[in-house]
């Protein structure tokens, strides 16, 4: 392994890393927002919207991100909707992630025991107060492990962005390998940067999981 090659490629990888992280996290935030809204719609049986929400969740959970990206990036322009690769990446990740987050949030909501609602209502709380003070905090705590797993999953999925020519880490690696054949250096850097991207998130996620689990269950 040639350290000169490593150091000359480093800035390219850093740039790619930043782009990946940026679009990745934008996608994750979109996913969280969509997830919460969709989970509410399903949990509260909102008429008309609920079947749409359920269809959305099933469609996007059962198809790969790559196909979704291709559809958005190459297919939609044919009916007049053109987006940049970056927007496509963020939106695609957000739509895919939203379906996973919705499932996780919905499970959390469903897992809060009915007796909690009854106790709160018996004390005279309004439905809004019940939801905000009793159900929502517990639902979040319960769904934390799933949410953390989803975030890690979504960050890993960013590796697919290269397919739509987004200059992310994979694209950079493939490009450099194709041009200069320094396969070892390129792959090593690739691995290193993904570790940097994911390991801190994984550790923070575990800490968050432990904290919420302790708070709820004392374990």
């Amino acid at each position, binding site marked *: 392994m040639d350290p000169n090659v490593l150091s000359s490629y480093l800035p390219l990888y850093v740039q790619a890393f930043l782009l990946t992280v940026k679009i990745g996290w934008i996608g994750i935030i979109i996913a969280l927002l969509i997830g919460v809204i969709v989970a509410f719609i399903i949990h509260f049986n909102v008429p008309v919207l609920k079947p749409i929400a359920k269809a959305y969740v099933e469609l996007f959970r059962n*198809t790969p991100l790559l196909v979704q990206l291709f559809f958005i990036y190459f297919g*939609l322009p*044919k009916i007049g909707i053109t987006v940049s690769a970056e927007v496509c990446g963020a939106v695609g990740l957000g739509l895919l992630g939203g379906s996973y987050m919705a499932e996780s949030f919905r499970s959390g909501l469903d897992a809060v025991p009915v007796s909690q609602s009854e106790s709160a209502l018996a004390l005279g709380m309004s439905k809004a107060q019940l939801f905000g003070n009793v159900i929502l905090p517990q639902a979040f705590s319960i769904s934390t492990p799933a949410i953390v797993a989803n975030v890690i999953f979504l960050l*890993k999925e960013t*590796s697919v962005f*290269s397919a739509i020519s987004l200059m992310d880490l994979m694209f950079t690696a493939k490009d450099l390998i194709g041009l200069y054949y320094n*396969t070892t250096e390129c792959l090593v850097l690739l*691995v290193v940067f993904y570790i940097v991207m994911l390991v801190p998130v994984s550790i923070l996620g575990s800490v968050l999981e432990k904290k919420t689990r302790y708070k709820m269950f004392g374990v």
Partner: protein
Amino acid sequence: MGFDVLFKGTNFIRLLAGLGVALKISLISVAISIPLGIVLGMIMTTKNVVVKAITRLYLEIVRIMPQMVLLFIVFFGATRALGINLSAESASIIVFSFWGTAEMSDLVRGALTGIPVIQYESSFALGLSPLQTYLYVIIPQIVRRMIPLSINLITRMIKTTSLVMMIGIVEVLKVGQQIIEANRKSSPNAAFGVFATVFLLYFLACYPISCLSKYLEKKWEN
């Protein structure tokens, strides 16, 4: 909107064949992962610190590294580092099995630790050897637990096979691209119709399986 191109010639058949490639890779990989996973899962219940550390590292690698990166490392790296000329298909099966075995072993380990020690003890007390105990007493119990989760893994593998087009395998997405290219003049909007169809094909492949998994989970909720 480009759906017309699907009805031309053998285009649709080719798309289905591409999906077949995805299914083939997934099923082979799962078939390898399950027995390996069971064995590794049993090994992971050991108290040996070194073994625990190595297997822990293995699981973390699979957990952190995107499958795409692993595909690249095996496909491009194997040729450079080991001089072996690996076909893209073999590379994908290796990577998917690597992934599948890790998940399976974690599942098995979790299921095994859930079985009370007393089961082992009563079995030994009856005179069964450790191997017999595993074969006749322990494994049948954990198989039930593992089935819904294994089905879930199959679904995820099928979806992930879409990545193998990036190392040149002609699976359904790649076929789609070829069709679009071939019909660029005659059907300029083919991209919409073709990719919508690919989207639907994957959905139709995965949705029934995931429904089956949910149904089984509910059925065996006891």
